[in-house]
């Protein structure tokens, strides 16, 4: 049996946990992009490496924003 108060709080908790999980996934994804960037550098495909570097930075920034959002929601 879930109390009324718990029912009111639950969506908020789920939301901030979800936001934190997505931000961690985005951090991991940026790591994959950086890894691929180094791989493309060693293959001398500098344009591809630069594009992947920018994708990595954009993804890590989006992760930071989501983590902030999760933090504010938790408060």
């Amino acid at each position, binding site marked *: 049996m879930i109390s009324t108060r718990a029912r009111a709080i639950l969506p908020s908790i789920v939301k901030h946990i979800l936001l934190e999980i997505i931000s961690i996934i985005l951090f991991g994804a940026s790591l994959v992009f950086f890894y691929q960037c*180094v791989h493309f550098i*060693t*293959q001398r*495909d500098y344009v591809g490496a630069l594009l992947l570097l*920018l994708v990595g930075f*954009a993804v890590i920034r989006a992760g930071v924003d989501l983590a*902030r959002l999760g933090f*504010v929601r938790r408060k």
Partner: protein
Amino acid sequence: MASTSPFVYDVLMLRKSFALADVVLLVLGANLLSTFLLVPMLHYRGDELDGPLLASLLPISLLVAGVLTANRGILLFLVPVSLLLPLSLLPQLAGAKALSPTGFLLLAVALLGFTFGSAWVASTSRGAPLPSKRRQLEASPSVSRKHRRRLRIYTLFLLTCVAFPLTLIYALYLRPDAAALVEARFPERGPAASLLFGVLVTVFWLSVFLRYVAAPLRDHIRGDQNQRQQLKALEGRLHQRKAPASLYLYLLLALVMLALFWLHLRGSPPP
């Protein structure tokens, strides 16, 4: 020790620990020097070793000067940078061809050990007085929860700091085909290219570290007003059920760059 005053006792104990710390730091530095320079020199088959041997006197003398003065600039910056001088004279001493994966990991451990040792010696020898009272954060349940949350954040930062460099080092040096790839792409300057990529990746990681780890931690320690205002503004937007515009902007940028990357892959011949 009953007759000795607490102040004299503290001074004696601190001096004793500094002496021990100096010896430990010297051993860590010698370990780093031998792993990074002397062992590759011993295994190198060539006659051009006079220059690098002479150049390796610089990091040795800097190490001794750093340990004696406990100067953080010398220990944490000049000593590691001076290690690159012999390598710049003979790049064959470094890179994927010179070190096996196990040797590389040993070198990484040596470098980390020296860095932590230097940071510890530099921070304890500043003469900063030790706090007379220590607050037990675990004592109060409300503070303890906050403390636990902070510990979680610091642990995540630590994991990020381990995962990122390890992945980049693996991609550059430890992959089974890394050495062969660099040799095939840069037949005449393989070791130099490998060294250059290492420096570029180090600069890249340092910029990410300073921007996304060191800066937030510094703000966190100082209780930065700017950060608080940003969080308040974010809270205000959240009340209006609006996500920050920068989030959409960065997601859009990522998608556009991915689309460009896909077009680039379609346009270029397979490697």
